[in-house]
Each structure stands twice: as C-alpha cells, then as structure tokens.
C-alpha cells in the first residue's frame, strides 16, 4: 500500500511535466493552431506546461486493474463459488425424482418425443430408463434427494433448486462455453471475469478469480471457460493446482534467493519508473503494480493453498486427500480463498459423462462413485461456510453444462453393456445456496418423465442474470464496449429468477 501511495504522489508531481502529445492536444484550448505556435515558440513540452488547464488524474483502476469498484446496487453476496460438474450429471439420479419414469422403465420412448430432436448418440427408438437411485424427501422443505447423496440430503434446506433449467447446446464444449460465458462460441468473457472486472478484488495479495480442477481432466471447452474474452486479460481466471506448486513456476528457481528476486523486481521497477517519468503513461504504473503483486503472491498463494495447516476435524469433514488432486481438496481451498476475499472461485470436476460405454461412465456405478466423491465435500463446504458466517456473503452455484435423457442410451442402435443416459439440454437441475437465496426453495418442474420443463423453465441466461443480480448488478446495464457495441454476459436475454431469491 505504501508503494501505491508513493506511486500516486509521484505521478501527480510528474504529470504536468510529462504530458503526452495526446493529453496536450486534448487540453490545449487553441488546438492545432496552438500546437503550431507552441512548437514555433519553444517546443511542445514547455508550452504544454503553461497551456494545460485541466489536471487529469488517474483512477485507482488505471494503476491497479483489480482495485475494487462498488457495485451499482446493494449486493447480497461478495463472493461466488461455482461448482461445475463437467460432463453433465444426471438430474434423474440426483434431484429430479420421476416415479412415473420408473413405471415406464424398459418401454419404447414415444415417437412424439423423438421427432425433430437431435441427440448426441441415441439412434432409432431408445427405451425409457427409470431412475437408478432411490429418492427421499428431506428437511422441512421436503425437497427430493437421492440416496446417491446421503450427506447432502442433510443440508437440503439450505439450497434452492432450479429443476427446469434448459440450454440449446448438447455437446460438452459449446455447452460449457455457454454455461460460463453466455455464448456457445468462443470469445466471450466468463462469469468470473465479468465479476472481477466489475467489482475488483479485495485482497491485494491474491488473484481475484481462481480456478481449481479435479477429476483428471480439464473441461472439454478448455481454458476459455474461465477466459477473459474481450475484457482485459488481467480478469481471466488463474488456474491453481491442489497438487504440486499451486501455480506453475511460483517458486523461485533454484539458486535464486528471495532477496535477489526482490532486487531484480526493484531494478525492473526502477527502469519502469524512469520510463514513466519520460512518458507519463499510466500503463507503466499498472505494470509496476503487477510486478509487486506477483511478488506478494509468491508468499500469499502457497499460504492460502496449503490445506495441511487446517485442523484435523476440518480436513476430515471435507474428506481431503493431501498431496492429491481431488474435489474435496478443492472445496476446502474454495472456502479458504473466499475467506481471504477472493471474488470468484471456479471448481471444475471432470467425470460426469455417464453414457454407459464404460463402467466408470455408467449411471448405476460410475455416477454413484462421482456422487460419493462430491457428496461429503459439498456438504462440508456449505456447513463450514455457515459456521464461519461466510455463507451470508457467498453464493454457491452447482450444476453441469446440461442434463441427461430419460431414455437409456443405445449408441449405434444397440443395447449397451452399461446403463447410460445421453446428453439432454431440455431440462436439468441446478441449485444455488448462500446469501440472498431462498432456503429450501424449489423452482420449476419437469414433465412426468423429466424430458422437458413444464413449469418455471429457466434459461442459462436467467441463471447468469441471477448471479449478477446477487453480486449487485443489473445484467442489462452491466456492459463492456467492444467492436462498436456494448456487450453483456446475458446478450439480449435473461431475467432474474426472483422465485429463488429471499
């Protein structure tokens, strides 16, 4: 902070002497004539000193792109933890209980549902497949949860379900992009990038947008799902790892001491300051700031990413596996990051694509294992945030990129070895939990077999509008000027889902 103060002061002192040509022309009231006169008399610089009438000063954002900005409206939450189950979990085995579907198990899917539909793999006439899990109504809310999630059912009153979310994409890559950037095509900023761009980040020693992955693979859509699109790249997600160095190359190389590193950065900064004195370009100050932030992060990031310092009971509660890459570790890290003021934490867990081709991708076995892997950590995350008073100011979002079909997958029009369900974007379940969310709510309903939403359908844009609303934005006003027009996360759609708001 002292450094920033010194920088601002230095800037103000030097500013008058170091007007760029652009500043000069802008503030010189006599315009080009004055320019000509000025150069005739004694050169631009000295003329601008006297010719300058306005004292333009830079905002904090010019110096530090992650400086905080208050949101336009009163926010309900200050941080978001987004849990994305990459591959798309089956709503029919987790939250969307369809007893009718059980009765119809094994029957041919009615043609009316198949006409004009595209599926990723289903061919011909598939058979309906009843839920492969048992369901119970839990808590005061009486919301349905399956026996695949025996821990989560105890916190079901904390969350609000969206039972009829729909998307227009049925392949992983585009659907993930859509879910995280509001567009199935590349090039748009992710939600986390929008949030950090719009609000900045409180902790000056940590990135504002952190991404953690588990399940052995990163999402199909690649890093664009946490990219910054057309926003300045400083707002993109910083991928941290729960195994090995939390950020690649964060440790100083062997033989380089912390002191040497410091003097290196000091030397670079000194040169940058000289450049700044010459040109007065705020970008240079921002760069100086970035170097210093990176230096501070070298200490702060490994500290916050170290789960070994957590007490034993907490580690047990989450079920962490130190030294491994696991969703449980990432959940605990997410809590620690939010506790340290990180704005947006994005978790991706891979392995939910239960087509039934292999055992690990089967509805009754592989999916169940995946559920076991997330059941405890998510339950622990909710409870841990709650007991620390953080759940009031944090939003947890859970979901996949789409849902799965009520029909059993019949890849190549054959009966498959394992039970699987195909991609399905017409209706799937998501839930939200935390500040501003109506506890125990359930919005939307699907038809008897869970194929389409019949009531309270919400789009991906609606989900985005709701997240932005909770952070204090009007999604229609929150724009970024690019290629000659203002862009929004929600494009030209989306409305806030008030039904799940407290």
């Amino acid at each position, binding site marked *: *902070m*002292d450094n*920033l*103060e010194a920088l601002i002061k230095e800037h103000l002192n030097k500013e008058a002497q170091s007007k760029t040509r652009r500043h000069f022309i802008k503030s010189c009231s006599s315009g080009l004539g004055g320019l000509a006169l000025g150069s005739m008399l004694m050169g631009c610089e000295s003329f601008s000193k006297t010719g300058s009438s306005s004292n333009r000063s830079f905002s904090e954002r010019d110096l530090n792109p992650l400086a*905080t*900005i*208050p*949101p*336009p*409206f*009163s*926010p*309900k939450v200050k941080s978001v933890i987004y849990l994305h189950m990459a591959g798309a979990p089956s709503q029919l085995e987790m939250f969307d209980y369809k007893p009718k579907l059980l009765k119809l198990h094994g029957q041919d899917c009615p043609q009316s549902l198949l006409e004009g539909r595209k599926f990723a793999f289903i061919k011909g006439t598939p058979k309906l497949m009843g839920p492969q899990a048992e369901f119970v109504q839990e808590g005061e809310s009486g919301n349905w949860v399956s026996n695949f999630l*025996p*821990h989560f059912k105890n916190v079901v009153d904390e969350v609000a379900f969206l039972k009829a979310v729909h998307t227009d994409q049925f392949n992983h890559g585009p659907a993930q992009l859509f879910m995280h950037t509001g567009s199935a095509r590349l090039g748009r900023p992710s939600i986390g990038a929008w949030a950090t761009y719009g609000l900045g980040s*409180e*902790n*000056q*020693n940590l990135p504002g947008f952190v991404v953690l992955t588990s399940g052995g693979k990163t999402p199909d859509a690649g890093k664009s799902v946490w990219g910054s699109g057309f926003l300045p790249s400083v707002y993109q997600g910083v991928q941290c790892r729960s195994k090995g160095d939390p950020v690649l190359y964060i440790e100083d190389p062997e033989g380089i001491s912390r002191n040497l590193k410091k003097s290196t950065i000091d030397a670079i900064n000194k040169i940058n300051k000289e450049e700044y004195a010459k040109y007065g370009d705020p970008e240079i100050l921002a760069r100086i700031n970035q170097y210093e932030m990176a230096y501070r992060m070298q200490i702060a990031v490994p500290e916050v990413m170290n789960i070994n310092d957590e007490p034993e*009971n907490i580690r047990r*509660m989450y*079920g962490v596996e130190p030294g491994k890459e696991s969703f449980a570790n990432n959940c605990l890290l997410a809590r620690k990051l939010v506790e*340290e*003021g990180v704005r947006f934490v994005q978790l991706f867990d891979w392995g939910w694509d239960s087509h039934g081709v292999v055992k690990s991708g089967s509805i*009754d*076995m*592989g999916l*169940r*294992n995946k559920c*076991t892997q997330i059941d*405890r950590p998510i*339950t*622990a995350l909710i*409870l*841990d945030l*709650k*007991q*620390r*008073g953080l759940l*009031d100011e944090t939003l947890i979002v859970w979901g996949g990129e789409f849902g799965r079909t009520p029909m059993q997958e019949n890849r190549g029009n054959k009966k498959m070895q394992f039970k699987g369900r195909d991609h399905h974007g017409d209706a799937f379940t998501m839930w939200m939990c935390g500040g*501003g969310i109506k506890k125990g709510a359930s919005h939307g309903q699907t038809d008897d077999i869970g194929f389409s939403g019949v009531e309270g359908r919400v789009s991906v844009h609606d989900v985005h509008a709701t997240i932005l609303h909770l952070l*204090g934005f009007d999604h229609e006003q929150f724009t970024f000027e690019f290629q000659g027009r203002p862009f929004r996360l929600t494009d030209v759609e989306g*409305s806030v889902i*008030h039904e799940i708001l*407290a």
Partner: protein
Amino acid sequence: MEVLTQLLGRLHPVVVHLPIGFIIAGLLLHWTDRKQQQLGKVIPVLFYWGGLSGALACVSGYFQYLGEGYLYDTIKWHLWMGIATTLFCFLMMYRFKEASFLKPINKIPPTALTVLFFVLISITGHLGGNITHGKNFLTEPLPNSVKNFLGLPTYEKKQIVLHEEDWQDAQLYDEVIQPILTNSCVSCHSDKKMKGELQLHTIEGILKGGESGLVLEASNADESDLFVRMNLPRDHEDHMPPKDKSQPSKAEVELIKQWINVGHPFDQTIGESGLDKDYFLAFFPKKIEVNYPDVQVSQAHPDSIQAIKQFGIHVEPISKVTPYLRVSCINQPNFTDSDFKVLSAISAQTAILDLGGTQVSDSIFGRLGQLPQLTVLALDHTQITGEGIDQLQSLQHLKSINLSHSNFEESHLSALSELKSLQKLYLYQTNVQQNNDGTFQEKGIQVDYGNYEVPFLPTDSIVY
C-alpha cells in the same frame, strides 16, 4: 456517380433550409412592405432564388429517397408537397412581377397567396421533420393534459402494488390485469392508435377483439391470442408486444394466462377468482434486505476515504446507491486498537466493519460503540474475550456479529442478548458452550455455534 447522388441525397436536410429561408424572407418582406409597396422588385428576386434552391432541394430529396431506402409511402406526401412548394414559389415570383400570362391569378390579392404559401411550406417542412425525427418528436415532451386536449395518445405506466393484508380484496381486472395491459399493450391498442383494429384499454375492446378475430377464448388461455402472442418467443414474428418494445414480466404473462383460464372475470376480486397467491407474489412490495440502516447520512469525503485506503484498509461504498461504507482490514492484519482512530472520519458512514484476523483486543468495544450505523461486525480470528462488549448496546442497527475463532467468554453472552437489532451471532470456536436456554431464540436471534460434522457413513467408502 452513385457516391455523388448519395452524397447529394444526404445534403438534402441542409439544402432544404435554403428555400425555406428565401421564402420566409420573401413573405416577411411582403408583410412589412404591404403599405409602402417600395420593395416590389426585391420580393420576386427572393422567390426566384427560393424556387431555384427549392428545385435543388427536390432533386436532392429525391436522391435521398432513392439512396437511403425510404418507402414511397413514407415520403410521398412530403415529396409532392415539396414539388408543389417549389412550383408555387415560381408562381409567386411571377405574381409579384405581375407577369401578363398570369392574368386570372393576378386578380387574387397577394396577401391571400402569401398566407396560402406559408401554410404550404409549413406543412411540407413538418412532413419532412416527421420523416427524420419520428412522428411524435414534437408532441412527445408535452404534458399529458395537453396531449389529452389535442387528442394525442397518452400513456402512463401504472404501478401494480398489492399488500399482504388486503391482496384478496383487490379487484383482479381493475387493479392487476388492466394495469398490465396498460403498461404493455395500450400504447398501440387503444382508441387513439388502434393497431390491428384492437383496443385493449376498455372491457368492450378486449371482448370485441381485432382484425384477426377474438383475442379471448373463454377459460382457455392456450387458444386465446391475447396470451398466446405474449407467450411466443420474443423473436417470433407474431410475438406481442413487438420485440423492440418493453415487455411484460414473466409473472405478468403468467397472470394473464391464469386470468383467462378462470374465465377472464372483469368484476371479481382476487379472492373471488380463487387464484393462488403465488401468481401475485411479484406484485407485493419487496422488502429489500440490505446491510445498512434506513437512515440518511451524508457522503464521506473522498479525501478521508483516500487517507484510510492509504493506511492499507479496504474501504468502499457498499454500492453506488448508498453512502454507507464497507470497511475491511483484510490487507492490514497488523491493525490494532489504536489504529482505530484512522476510521474516525468515516464513523458516520461505516455500516459493515470487518476486523477479522487483526490484532484488536477488548478495548476495541468502546471505540466500536462510536459507530452509530454499524450493521455487520466481524471480529473473528481475534484475541477478544468480550470484556466490555456491553458498550455495543448503544448500536441501534447492529444485526450480525461474527465472533468465531476468538477467545469470547460465555460470561459476556448475556450482554449480547440486549442488542436491539441483533439477528445473527456466530460463536464457532469460542469459549462458549452450546446452550439452549432459549434467551436468544426468544428474541429471534440466530446463534451459530458451528462444530458441524459430516459423520462417516458406511456408503462413504463403497466404490462401485
């Protein structure tokens, strides 16, 4: 060539002002000279130039019509009136010259012709203005009373507000359905402007329907155009209101559906219609839960905020709509009791204060008592024991205190139950044993002792 014609076309809005100027000048000269009659030779010259420039305006206008894709129907009146004005201009020139071939016209007194000419050029100019600025450009800023007097459509958004205590007594049609229609439909469907021959501002109009027939099918919303067209996807050709107009909310469309389904009653209360309260929830005034008091305060001076920031404390308005501040020591873990004085400049605006993880001790409570608007307080991960916490009792708005991971003692708990507005208290990892004596519960204060566990289940270790 195309470039030239297009350029000339775009000059039309400039060029038209030349004939207007000449003509008005000629008319005014005639008016001032009507007694002396000394300027008889000047006036025809003005009309001569008026006519020439008018012809230029006609040509450029025609190019603009060709080049900018206007529909003939949009511009036809302006076009022909423009040509007429130009011709009339030459006519006026010869009239003032008293040319011999205009004998019959020379009998008409020039003043009558000038009045006619003035009317002609006014209409032509107005029609042109309508094309560039839109038909209601001129009348839009008029107050509603004047618009009514002129017979222009008036249209005012109606707020739909229901209240918890008497929502069932509200008239379903008058107080809910009609305002929805007024806000979303009536600007185009009324007696003033009757698109598709449909009027939705009166009961008769709604029942009568429009050019494609009835809009209401009794008790069947899915067959009623009124609902169906609102419910179509926004980019559907038949969607109403048109996609560039403001749209009714989902709740409003849903309510139109429900109203039709119960037989579109016009004289029932909501209670009589039997519709569920859920459909109306969107119209109840929202109690907005915010973390600052409902008390007006002045803005903190930017300089004092800057000074505090330079001390390493995060301080920022909670949002752009309030002067209340959120203050956090997240970047200043070395903050101590004596540092508190740097916050004095913003003591009137501090609503959220996060001192978590700092070096503060029990003597902080006396100082916290000087933040009259304090609403949310975090003292987690500190050494405080709670000695002197009774000094917070003067705080009228304090609704949440986080004491988790501190040395807070059970003996000071009772002082907290005296806090007027307290709603939430976090006591995880303190020296307080979970007790259920009910004092807090009685006062509606949620106490979170934490220590949640996720017990081991046999299923946890099963791998399929």
